[in-house]
């Protein structure tokens, strides 16, 4: 028996997530919720036999109980997530937040998933696409030695950034910064996002700079970084270390590329995959816990 899920937000992230969930052997994406009946995501969901509503989360609420929805994914925007979450929590639904609202604890699966499952939280926040791509690297270094400062630059193709992302640019940088600090383990963080309109669109790129307090233990850091790349590759196969780690005094720099699976947008949009695959990952583990609890 699969666990029934609802997808809220039929934009780029929600639609990519839909395809990932359809492949899951434990999650069943039953509902797709949007606000625009003409949106590509809703039309695709309908064609694929999912139940849909274009009345936002309120259109879904009456069906939560009868359809046995246990997990919902919110890929709307930081501005409406709080209200969506409140309504879903009242009905006992676990919520995976893919907006930068960050109400619940951050989840970067390769770093802190086990702890979150142990704590049995109702809401987890997936930080941001840039956070999912870079925080594992910061964590890999801070697991070796203290990181005084970490800075990341996330570059995504313009075509892969929908209106929600664009309206939430400040939330993106602030949430990513907090994630770098809280989950990455850097004492201080900074995040920069760039949208590049080149045609054909460029693959998602992420650069990570870390400044360690003491002289870097190069061998240990190289090993830790390579191990972490392999961890992330388990759910995002196109996650690759392009250059680095480059050591310059106490500064360590890493250049990453994230190629997606091309489920919804083409493969350049690795920024979708890195967050939707992470969300699928934690949701599957939650589903196992729910099943074990029943």
């Amino acid at each position, binding site marked *: 028996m699969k666990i029934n899920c609802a997808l809220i937000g039929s934009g780029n992230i929600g639609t990519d997530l839909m395809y990932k969930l359809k492949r899951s052997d434990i999650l069943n994406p039953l509902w797709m919720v949007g606000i625009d009946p003409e949106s590509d995501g809703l039309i695709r969901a309908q064609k694929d036999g999912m139940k849909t509503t274009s009345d936002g989360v309120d259109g879904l609420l009456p069906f939560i109980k009868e359809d046995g929805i246990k997990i919902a994914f919110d890929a709307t925007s930081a501005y409406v997530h709080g209200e969506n979450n409140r309504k879903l929590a009242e009905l006992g639904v676990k919520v995976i937040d893919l907006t930068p609202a960050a109400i619940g604890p951050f989840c970067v699966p390769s770093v802190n998933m086990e702890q979150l499952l142990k704590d049995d939280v109702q809401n987890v926040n997936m930080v941001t696409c840039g956070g999912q791509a870079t925080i594992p690297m910061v964590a890999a270094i801070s697991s070796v030695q203290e990181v005084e400062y970490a800075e990341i630059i996330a*570059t995504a193709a313009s075509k892969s950034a929908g209106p929600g992302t664009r309206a939430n640019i*400040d939330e*993106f*940088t602030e949430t990513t910064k907090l994630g770098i600090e809280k989950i990455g383990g850097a004492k201080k963080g900074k995040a920069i996002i760039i949208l590049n*309109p080149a045609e054909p669109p460029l693959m998602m*790129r992420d650069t990570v700079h870390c400044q360690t307090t003491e002289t870097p233990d190069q061998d240990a850091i190289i090993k830790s970084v390579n191990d972490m790349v392999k961890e992330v590759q388990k759910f995002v196969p196109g996650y690759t270390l392009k*250059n680095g780690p480059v050591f310059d005094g106490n500064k360590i720099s890493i*250049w990453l590329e994230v190629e997606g699976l091309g489920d919804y947008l083409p493969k350049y949009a690795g920024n979708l995959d890195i967050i939707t695959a992470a969300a699928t990952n934690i949701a599957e583990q939650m589903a196992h816990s729910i099943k074990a609890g029943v």
Partner: protein
Amino acid sequence: MDLRGKKITIHDMSLRDGMHSVRHQFTLDQMTAMSTAMDQAGVPMIEVTHGDGLGGSSLNYGYGLHTNEEWLDAVVPNMKQAKISALLLPGIGIVKDLERAVEHGISTVRVATHCTEADCSAQHIKAAVEMKLDTVGFLMMAHMVDEKKLVEEARKMVSYGATTIYATDSAGYLLPDMVGSRIAALKAEFGDEIELGFHGHNNLSMGVANSLSAIEAGATRIDASLAGFGAGSGNTATEVLVAVCNRMGIETGIDLDKIVDAAEDIALPIMGKPTRISRDSLTLGYAGVYSSFLLFARRAEAKYGIDARTLLVELGRRGMIGGQEDMIDDCAMEMAKAKGLI
């Protein structure tokens, strides 16, 4: 070209774009000296920010010697008439940074996006309007789109509340007719409701010529900087622009002798070596590459043995835009690996 009787506002960039020339290392005394001299010469607007704007101080773009607030405090209290602006690139700076800059005395903000990404500026422009700032939408790398697209993006910024729109030639690539057609298209769209501006780089020695073309087409705010202090081959030189405007009967309100002295006696000694059109900075203009990449490419050349000019051309070919300084080392390493250098 008959521009007699036109009135323009020169917006000086020495203390912001000029930051790129000195890797954001202006001292407070230097800021005070340059701004005071400009204020006395009658420069009406002066931008004071890290070269990459609010929030720009970083490992990626270079740390500023001071915070934006410290720099603003070295300038704002001494101004008799000049108004002070800040630059904000969404994705780098945030609204909170803007609020702090307002507390430290700015009255204008220029919200800058790549020329196709105006919808990333909604949050910041709306916040600026709420703070009652003179709010400018600054469309960078304007050579990368045609007039129609530029107007479309400008319309978005205007819809958020911007009252001035800039066509920004970040790469110093545009030629006078290309500037004229862009400003004319904006003018045709917005008429007198929206003020128009032009920001040039002198990479192909077109700074003054492009500014005149912009004025002819209806721009009334023109960016310039003392002795051309700025990224790449620098901006249009303020003192040269004022001299040309005087000859052509364009009113700037700036005293020519005073501004020439400020450039020669104050700015030049601070610059160390004069900004000039070098092999590499010419390449920026020729290939259409973001002017701030210049010094980064030179450092990558020293580090990885890849010729800066070749590297800049490759970055242009790959479609790198403003803010992507992190890709310069990446690209250099890739080229060096291919050549067996590393």
